[in-house]
């Protein structure tokens, strides 16, 4: 589903985000990405979502060669990749419903279909009752769940999460991980960047360890 072939990303000024990464993630896999901060976890996710382009090597997602993707095709690629952020990235002047509906509206979906799907996604993350609330009135864990609902509402085959539990206590983190496992069970390929090693160990999933932009370990389970 996702493949890196000798991929490097060098930022202007000479700093290497990642260097010479080669890996393969199969469809339906759930993979953790760990390493100290600055090790290149975010850079890898950014390369997959085409927030950045590699300076060397090829990144492929779902058979699509991202190196060759034209600028005008990037939006269509991003619709296939759901993204979850540590800081949620919700719009605070819109209700929970409107936040979650954004990817569907962007994709030009009709009103009824949008309502149906948004409610289904909110139901999955347990926030159906709060659809009219504004994000600011929700707790951190709830806001993160809204972010998750937004990432999966358009049923993308790939979901990326960048430190999704970074600001949450262990109980809430556990809930979020259970949600991820739920999505994974229906065939979504998940790539979760985290430095919460305890959580990673408990879930027994494939784990990629980055150090200074290099892939140093690739465990299939602990």
């Amino acid at each position: 589903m996702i493949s890196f072939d000798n991929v490097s990303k060098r930022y202007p000024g000479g700093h290497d985000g990642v260097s010479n990464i080669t890996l393969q993630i199969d469809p339906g896999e759930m993979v953790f990405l760990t390493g100290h901060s600055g090790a290149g976890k975010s850079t890898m996710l950014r390369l997959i979502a085409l927030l950045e382009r590699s300076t060397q090597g090829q990144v492929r997602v779902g058979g699509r060669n991202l190196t060759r993707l034209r600028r005008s095709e990037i939006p269509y690629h991003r619709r296939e990749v759901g993204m979850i952020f540590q800081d949620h990235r919700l719009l605070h002047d819109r209700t929970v419903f409107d936040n979650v509906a954004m990817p569907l509206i962007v994709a030009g979906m009709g009103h009824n279909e949008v309502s149906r799907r948004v409610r289904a996604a909110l139901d999955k993350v347990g926030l159906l009752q709060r659809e009219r609330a504004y994000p600011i009135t929700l707790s951190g864990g709830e806001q993160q769940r809204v972010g998750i609902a937004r990432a999966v509402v358009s049923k993308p085959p790939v979901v990326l999460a960048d430190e999704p539990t970074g600001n949450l206590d262990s109980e809430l983190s556990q809930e979020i991980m259970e949600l991820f496992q739920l999505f994974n069970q229906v065939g979504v390929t998940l790539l979760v960047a985290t430095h919460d090693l305890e959580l990673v160990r408990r879930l027994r999933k494939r784990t990629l360890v980055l150090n200074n932009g290099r892939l140093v370990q690739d465990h299939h389970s602990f």
Partner: protein
Amino acid sequence: MRATSIRNKTSASLSRRRQINPRIWLIRHLQVALSSLGRLARTPFSSLMTIAVIGIALALPSGLHLMLSNIRTLSNSWDGAASISVYLVQTASDETAAELAKQLHTDPEISEVRVITRQQALTEFRQMSGFSGILSTLEENPLPAVLVVKPDQNLNDPGKAQNLATRLSALENVEFAQLDLQWVTRFHAITEIANRVVWVVASLLGLAVILIIVNTIRLEIQNRHAEIEISKLIGATDSFIRRPLLYSGAWYGLFGGLVSWLLVTLSLLLLSAPVSRLAGLYQSDFELAGIDFNIFILLLSSGALLGLAGSWIAVARHLHNIEPN
């Protein structure tokens, strides 16, 4: 095996999602247009300020244009009144004058001939000049008979009327024929210059409107930075992000056009009473013409187009700077 099936599903769904139902597309446009309008309404003070500035900028050239076209109507009515005075020789009798008038009446370039007999001329001169005392001491009527010739309507070109006058001068019993159109020609030249001035002013102020809207939309882009960034993250195309901003620009321009119409119409109302009083003093029933429907539509649509152009420039200039990170 499983890998291929999901991959196929992915690329299939990608192509499916690119095709947007035209009905939904239309509804989306309508929604975006209305929500841009709602956005303007949410900040009424700053929106009104922008709209007022645009309105004033558009009102100036349209007001000047209106003034000019009013002056033109006025000068056209003078053109129509332009006639050739054909002075007959002193010896020509009233019968000769009537005979000549009859003859000229058949001329295709002439629409009307009026005879002023020598006696009529004298009476009129007495009344108008105030020299009646002196005139009565004269033994003989010093005034010739005059034929007032009105050129055909098609002959409103001053040059052709002048040719006609020359031709009439050459006729037997005619002393000379005078076409007093020189000032009309000059007036035409002046209005032509004024017309150019209106165009120059209109272009400059049109440019000003574009710049105002560029700046307004630039601020709007700054205010919506977070929204634009997230939209890009979740796969919004450039045109999707552009659309509400372009609609905002068009709305600003449209309302600016409306305000300019209002301003010009109000100024006209203020002017119309004194103008008709002045016209009354000149025995004229001239009245100021207002903005007609065509000009009204032109004003609105040029406002909207300028708005669209301005927001397009702002969007092209600033939207690419926002990239999600």
